């Protein structure tokens, strides 16, 4: 099934109206679309407590549909992990959500995550929204068997389930991720990195969540294991109808696992749309350069020139467009005036970019400094 078909499956009207309670009573317009949305993030802003004007995440909005896999892409420090932690209500102590709404429509009702207290949030976490952490191999407790760790997650959230039923479910979960159920009595150190990552996925699925957030779930693995884990995530998603929010810096991994993408830079979403549209025709110079740097379709030996400079720190962002001082196309307007998101194409979600010049004429945003010889590197300040 191609990515396009999978996206089509998530478009309201095309998707089957599963479980729309009281069928005929459901509103004809808007209702279907609402049912289809699992997570709606609007205007999320996260700031440092000791410096409230420093926005780590700045006015981030996106919509995740049921069954959709969305990639949140960007380089270290762009705010992608902070965005995910805000959804889970797990912001580190020094950070605070200063504005924005997070509406989660799991379990048949809409819940405003931003208004929930600690106890209510704990019930949702793992039961409805779970997370596969970065470097999961270190997230498992080394002194407990993997089976008991999965069982613990189940009994915490469903205390009424009996011991026999729990251990049966642990077996099924391990089976599902391709680890022999009899190995549930083994300790984490007795597994390879790829197997530990599979166990982390089983742990994330333990309470049958509707949304799984993966924070660089394959970054520490080598290519072959990475491909296996990505395939596994895809299969589980189709089987269980899960939604996936994949946080990654790796645009190639994202293309393999997701249907839609949001690219973040310096705390903001700078481009969003279907993976097909964004990768084929990027409309923000930053996205275009990131794709160029992958060099996936260059002749061997070709080395793309780097983007000059570094991503600005949250307390030292430039005026106007935050990318302007690194952008080869920047004009005076870019330095003076901050661009809004501009729609550049139809689709679900619509293709949009935060650039004054979007939509670009065909191919105009493609890097012109691409060259086949490694000479002539730009000095970085």
């Amino acid at each position: 099934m191609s990515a396009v078909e999978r996206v089509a499956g998530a478009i309201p009207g095309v998707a089957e109206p599963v479980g729309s309670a009281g069928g005929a009573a459901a509103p004809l317009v808007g209702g279907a679309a609402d049912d289809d949305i699992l997570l709606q993030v609007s205007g999320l802003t996260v700031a440092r407590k000791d410096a409230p004007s420093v926005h780590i995440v700045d006015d981030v909005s996106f919509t995740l549909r049921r069954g959709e896999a969305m990639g949140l892409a960007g380089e270290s420090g762009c705010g992608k992990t902070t965005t995910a932690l805000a959804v889970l209500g797990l912001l580190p102590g020094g950070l605070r959500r200063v504005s924005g709404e997070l509406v989660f429509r799991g379990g048949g009702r809409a819940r405003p995550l931003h208004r929930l207290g600690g106890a209510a949030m704990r019930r949702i976490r793992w039961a409805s929204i779970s997370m596969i952490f970065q470097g999961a191999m270190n997230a498992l407790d080394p002194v407990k068997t993997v089976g008991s760790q999965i069982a613990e997650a189940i009994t915490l959230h469903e205390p009424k389930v009996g011991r026999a039923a729990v251990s049966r479910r642990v077996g099924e979960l391990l089976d599902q991720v391709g680890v022999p159920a009899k190995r549930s009595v083994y300790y984490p150190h007795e597994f390879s990195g790829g197997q530990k990552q599979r166990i982390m996925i089983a742990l994330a699925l333990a309470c049958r969540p509707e949304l799984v957030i993966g924070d660089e779930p394959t970054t520490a693995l080598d290519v072959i294991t990475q491909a296996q884990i990505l395939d596994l995530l895809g299969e589980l998603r189709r089987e269980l109808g899960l939604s996936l929010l994949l946080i990654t810096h790796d645009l190639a991994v994202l293309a393999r696992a997701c249907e839609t993408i949001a690219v973040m830079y310096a705390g903001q979403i700078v481009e969003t749309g279907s993976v097909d549209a964004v990768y084929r025709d990027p409309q923000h110079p930053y996205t275009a350069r990131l794709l160029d740097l992958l060099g996936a379709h260059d002749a061997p030996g070709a080395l793309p020139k780097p983007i000059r400079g570094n991503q600005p720190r949250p307390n030292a962002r430039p005026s106007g467009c935050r990318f302007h001082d690194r952008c080869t196309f920047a004009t005076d307007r870019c330095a003076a005036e901050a661009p809004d998101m501009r729609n550049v194409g139809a689709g679900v979600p619509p293709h949009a970019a935060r650039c004054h010049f979007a939509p670009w004429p065909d191919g105009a945003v493609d890097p012109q400094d691409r060259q086949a010889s490694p000479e002539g590197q730009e000095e970085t300040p």
Partner: protein
Amino acid sequence: MTAMDTPLLEASDVSVRYRIRGRSRRGSRYLTALDGVSLSWRAGETLALVGESGSGKSTLGRVLLGLIAPTGGTVRYGTQPLTGAVRRRLSREVQLIFQDPYQSLNPRSTVGAQVLAGLQIHRIGAPGVERTAIGLAALSAAGLNPPEVFWHRYPHQLSGGERQRVVIAGAMALGPTALVCDEPVSALDVSVRAQVLNVLADLRAERGLSLLFITHDVSLARQMSNRIIVLYRGRIVEEGPTATVLADPQHDYTKRLLAAVPTVPAR
């Protein structure tokens, strides 16, 4: 005989076995990390050793540098076996760059002190002004400008890419003829990765540096190497010019490895 034909480092029939925990009926158990590997890294060549975790690629890199003694076979530097004086010369002329610049730098000393330490160990330049000048020039060549600013910084004050460039500068200060880079950019972001690779490519162009990349990242091999060697379970399963191997892999494992690499849709 051109420069390209001169072997820089050569391994013949090298094997490495590690003793591992536990016993079999016949005594100790061993893990064969390398099994009869022969290769020649020619001067001026950029070679990529590619394979998944556990394929033996890092072990091979360390054997070539004389950091691990092979259980079988021999390694030659130029034409000489790796003994005493040859190993000392090798340890200056062929430098090693590790994956994680966070771990290869001492958090408690400044960039300048760490660059100087290498020069002291190898007794390069006169102590004082001359050594400092060599160190500053190396920082500048690695793209850390102005070098005086970076000289007094501590590792935690630098970004990941800057740290890796400090590591490269520390290596380059010793005037090596070759660098062995073990996953040099896999801990770095995409745009930073390109900066570091461009620094390496510039150094190669300016100084005729020979490079050996040890990596599981096929796209790195594609961007940087002339020749590729694919390792699988301690054996070489395929080798050849990078363009040929990537376009027309012969061994099943190479095919699987290339198929596993996620790609972006062509534009």
